[in-house]
């Protein structure tokens, strides 16, 4: 695990639940897509293109105040499990790792800054993807961080840029600013009050798009949604970022309102759902990742509504990351079968809830307005 020692906070600072509205917004990501002149883009890049891109990028890091002294990890020289841990921590994309079961393409790499929460993926779909991943709702801050690094890199590297179309990208959906800002949100209130469809349709009309965190079916798992800007051309970066921020704040307001309606009109059912979820997590002996995510949704709602006193959002965030297959395999020191994984996942969850998430049911009475369910 030496690789992770070299990354600030092991690449986990976005879990700390420190940003604004951290109970509703898990994380904010802003990325810029950049390409170098004279080389084919990702899909059509040959080995020598990728090597040249990586070489030019490496040279530029020495002269960048943001990247100097940072950590460069080349995908092809890492163990498969380590690469997947990066993926599970959302520090690299599936595309960077290449096809499941085959080795990553030559020249694919990620570089972490030592001074800012920012990294650069090299030889993904675009030559460079500059990205910042922060805890909570911090869109403008993430934009300023990637902008600063982009200025550093632009002084050193010949970016592919067009006077009319702006920064050129492999996919025309990214051209122009190359900017994609996205916010990872937990919206159980809107789902349970049936308002989610309307909310999501509204996003589409406002030039935003969303993705769920999908399980094996097409079902959205755990009421988690990723909201991002749909277009990248024809608006300034500040405009794109401010627009997303404004709309996300409105969605948060609607979500919090929906939660109050749940408490007002269906308090009994809501509390029961939350405590059942907590009970299952606390004592289950096998949990699939999908089941875990759905239970975590209930418990997260409970923590946010202060129905599960003392349970920290940070603990719940950790439970999402450390229960994924590569993390469980790392902890066990070997690859686990799916059945073993379910058992290890449940064991991890029981352990972490016992040490830092031990909620006593009696504590709810300190709420004052909690129903008297105790005998």
């Amino acid at each position, binding site marked *: 695990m030496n690789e992770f020692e070299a990354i600030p906070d092991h690449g986990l600072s976005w879990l700390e639940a420190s940003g604004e509205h951290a109970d509703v917004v898990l994380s904010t990501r802003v990325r810029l897509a950049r390409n170098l002149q004279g080389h084919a*883009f990702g899909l059509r890049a040959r080995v020598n293109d990728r090597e040249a891109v990586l070489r030019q990028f490496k040279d530029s890091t020495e002269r960048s105040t943001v990247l100097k002294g940072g950590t460069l990890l080349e995908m092809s020289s890492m163990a498969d499990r380590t690469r997947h841990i990066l993926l599970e921590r959302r520090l690299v994309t599936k595309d960077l790792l290449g096809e499941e079961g085959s080795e990553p393409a030559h020249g694919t790499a990620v570089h972490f800054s030592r001074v800012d929460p920012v990294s650069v993926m090299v030889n993904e779909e675009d030559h460079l993807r500059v990205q910042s991943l922060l805890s909570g709702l911090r869109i403008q801050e993430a934009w300023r961080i990637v902008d600063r690094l982009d200025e550093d890199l*632009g002084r050193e590297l010949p970016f592919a840029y067009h*006077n009319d179309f702006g920064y050129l990208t492999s996919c025309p959906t990214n051209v122009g600013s190359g900017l994609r800002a996205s916010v990872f949100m937990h919206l159980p209130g809107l789902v*349970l009050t049936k308002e989610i469809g309307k909310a999501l349709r509204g996003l589409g009309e406002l030039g935003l798009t969303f993705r769920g965190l999908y399980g094996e079916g*097409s079902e959205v798992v755990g009421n988690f949604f990723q909201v991002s800007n*749909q277009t990248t*051309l024809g608006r300034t970066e500040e405009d794109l970022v401010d627009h997303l921020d404004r709309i996300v704040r409105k969605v948060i307001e609607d979500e919090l309102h929906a939660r109050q309606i749940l408490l007002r009109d269906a308090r009994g059912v809501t509390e029961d759902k939350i405590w059942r979820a907590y009970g299952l997590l606390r004592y289950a002996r096998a949990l699939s990742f999908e089941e875990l995510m759905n239970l975590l949704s209930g418990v997260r709602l409970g923590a946010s509504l202060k129905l599960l006193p003392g349970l920290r959002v940070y603990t719940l965030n950790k439970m999402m990351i450390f229960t994924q297959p590569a993390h469980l395999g790392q902890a066990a020191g070997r690859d686990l079968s799916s059945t073993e994984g379910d058992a290890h996942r449940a064991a991890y969850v029981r352990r972490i809830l016992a040490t830092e998430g031990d909620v006593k049911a009696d504590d709810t009475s300190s709420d004052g307005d909690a129903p008297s369910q105790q005998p």
Partner: protein
Amino acid sequence: MADMVCDNCGSTDAVVHLTQIVNNQMSTHHLCERCAAEKGLESAPQMANLPLIDVIAQMTEEAPLDAATAGAECSFCGLTFGGFRETGRLGCPQCYEAFAGHLPQILRRIHGSVEHVGKVYLPPDPTASEMENRLEGLRRGLNRAVQSEDFERAAEIRDEIRNLEPA
């Protein structure tokens, strides 16, 4: 996931799972795509915007490509317009010139615009006109910052303009 039966029509391809609370009663419904749509619900992927490849396909259906257009080729990377249509990905920066006749239409459909108005890139060894473009971009940014009363940002941009402007 095992096939789920649609609560409404009984088909075995329920893909929309709805949990709702009405009058303090929680219930879960499983619906197929069609019944969900009839009830005004859609599964999330359907509601997401059309992927790019579909956008291009739809456009070329409206105005079919002639052989010359489909065969148009980028002289740098060799990608044909037909190849672009299949993958939705361009091959290299030159492709933007090679397919300049068709891209604006596609970009307009995707972004509602064909013109970049954001950051102006200043390459490592800029020409006079690249320098002027950058300055113009910065002045636009300065105006926006002042208008939105972001004076900290305005001061930063002013410094940058001073650094670039010929003495």
